[in-house]
């Protein structure tokens, strides 16, 4: 069964600092990978996705993520964090190909941004 691990439950950074959120997945074949962000009381907003091709993917709000098959990782990065980035971030995986897209989520990482 596929699984996703986000090792960091809570990360605190200063505004303007760089950010990296870790995500490791367990899945036999090439998965489809996603990062979602959730603000309090809101649903999940898609930041970026990886299906195939270029392993460095760009998303909204200045985020990017890199798929590393050898490390089974899909870490999310941002060069300079803004206070509005404070939220909870979820990494998710689904089987590729003809799968119907059932998402398996990591436990989430809460990001706090200090001014």
């Amino acid at each position, binding site marked *: 069964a596929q699984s996703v691990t986000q090792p960091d439950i809570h990360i605190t950074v200063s505004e303007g600092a760089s950010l990296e959120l870790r995500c490791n997945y367990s899945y036999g074949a090439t998965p489809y990978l996603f990062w979602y962000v959730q603000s309090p009381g809101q*649903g999940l907003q898609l930041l970026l996705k990886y299906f195939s091709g270029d392993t460095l993917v760009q998303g909204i709000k200045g985020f990017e993520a890199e798929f590393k098959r050898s490390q089974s990782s899909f870490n999310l990065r941002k060069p300079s964090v803004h206070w509005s980035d404070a939220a909870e971030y979820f990494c998710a995986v689904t089987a590729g190909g003809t*799968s119907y897209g059932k998402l398996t989520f990591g436990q989430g990482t809460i990001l706090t941004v200090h001014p």
Partner: protein
Amino acid sequence: GAGVSQSPSNKVTEKGKDVELRCDPISGHTALYWYRQSLGQGLEFLIYFQGNSAPDKSGLPSDRFSAERTGGSVSTLTIQRTQQEDSAVYLCASSPYSNQPQHFGDGTRLSIL
């Protein structure tokens, strides 16, 4: 355009009562998913619809939970004889076809007293 709409946004009910949660997907989206978000379990898949059919109901926790979708559009998730452990945020998502990026609603926060 309109996103995924869920109602009610909040629901408080007594243990043992039945509840219905509604999801209006984005127009034209054929795939619809329900997830549950709780403190102890995180985000869990409940059920997937393709059109009006539910090929995967494997995430429904018990036979107290059921869901339907009509007209390839609106879906309702029904919980019978609610228990306190049913307290959670229930999220609905839709996508144009299966295995495409999912668009989420803001969820229904269900509290069982």
